[in-house]
């Protein structure tokens, strides 16, 4: 492949959207209310839309007649580059919101920076995606506040969810060797530049939601290197079922 680093860099962004979208898709018809059900699946649809643009680009780099579907559906677990955060299960609505919120704030800042990439395709996908991600962040941020500053029970569950996901956010700011080479060439985004603003935005909003900011120094990582949690296998089993069972199926 002529540009392996760029290929892997694109997957590092795209796989987060694919796997989070798949998780949200599980809630279709199972949301806690009709409005939240529709909102979560709308968000999934936006994420899949962005993912398609990235994978189409990645497939063009992979050559050998590869398509966006090959890239999305036919990789093995170790070749997926998403962070562990997005593959964690839905468990309860508080978990869905905490996972979404912690990702959305990052995603928005990443898109904001990616708009200035010197890679025109990535910049275009980001310019399109940023408008959508702004809506996602507003949705998850509103619910964070509503549940955190809600009833005794909703507060307790929201706090538990934030505590649960806190160790996963450090990985968002890890850079792989491919990332570093892409940053150097002006294609990639140096996530370290907005690490501080991420934590301060999240901290402020947690406080506003009357939630305690966790002080857990422990972090859970691996997804960006292809080393995933046990949940990932189950997600891929469902995601890839049709293509694995009926290879080359189209409809």
């Amino acid at each position, binding site marked *: 492949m002529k540009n392996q680093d760029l290929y892997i860099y694109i997957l590092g962004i795209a796989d987060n959207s694919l796997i989070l979208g798949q998780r949200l898709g599980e809630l279709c018809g199972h949301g806690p209310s009709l*409005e*939240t059900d*529709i*909102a979560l699946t*709308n*968000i999934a*649809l*936006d*994420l*899949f*839309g*962005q993912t*398609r*643009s990235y994978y189409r680009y990645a497939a063009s780099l992979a050559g050998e007649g590869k398509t966006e579907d090959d890239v999305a559906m036919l990789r093995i677990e170790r070749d997926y580059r998403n962070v562990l955060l997005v593959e964690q299960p839905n468990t309860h609505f508080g978990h869905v919101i905490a996972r979404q919120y912690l990702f959305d704030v990052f995603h928005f800042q990443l898109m904001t920076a990616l708009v200035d990439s010197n890679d*025109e*395709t990535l*910049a*275009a*996908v980001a*310019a*399109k*995606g940023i*408008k*959508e991600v702004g*809506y996602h962040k*507003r*949705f998850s941020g509103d619910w964070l506040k509503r549940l955190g500053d809600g009833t005794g029970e909703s507060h307790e569950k929201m706090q538990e969810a934030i505590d649960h996901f806190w160790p996963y956010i450090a990985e968002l700011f890890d850079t792989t060797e491919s990332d570093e080479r892409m940053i150097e060439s002006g294609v990639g985004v140096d996530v370290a530049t907005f690490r501080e603003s991420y934590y301060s935005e999240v901290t402020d909003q947690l406080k506003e939601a009357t939630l305690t900011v966790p002080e857990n120094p422990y972090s859970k990582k691996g997804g960006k290197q292809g080393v995933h949690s046990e949940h990932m296998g189950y997600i891929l089993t469902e995601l890839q079922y049709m293509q694995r069972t009926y290879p080359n199926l189209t409809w």
Partner: protein
Amino acid sequence: MTIDLHPNIDENLVQILEEVADPEIPVLTVMDMGVIREAVARDGVVYIKLTPTYSGCPAMDVISDDLTAAFKKHGMEARVELVLAPAWTTDWMSEAGKRKMEAYGIAPPLEETADKDALLGNARIVKCTNCGSTNTRLLSQFGSTACKALFQCDDCQEPFDYFKCLK
């Protein structure tokens, strides 16, 4: 990089383009929506550049097929290409399109600041498509499609869609 926001569309192709409706809002044509960024005929082939409203908009594949079919009906071959930049904005919707949208039962997008106030629940300004009252409130930021939010009128009690401002 300078971006030309005015679409490059051959005058004589407009009539055929106006035959193609948005599958999600059938009263609007693709011209009303402002999703056609270029349409030029070269050597007997019509080259069209189409831009999505939202990244995941499932209507894009259908619109693309409908465009090809519409030109075929007029004995022309059309090739449709999807372009992402510059990103679509609700500013590209035609005024006539916004009026048709309202008559169809979808409140058209407000300008940016007013839209934010409406979606954050700070102001009651979105006009009910049923009775015209602005005594309306947001039910959900996400509606039946990616581009819409759900509102309800507190006067006539009707729920209705609002097309979100996208800039």
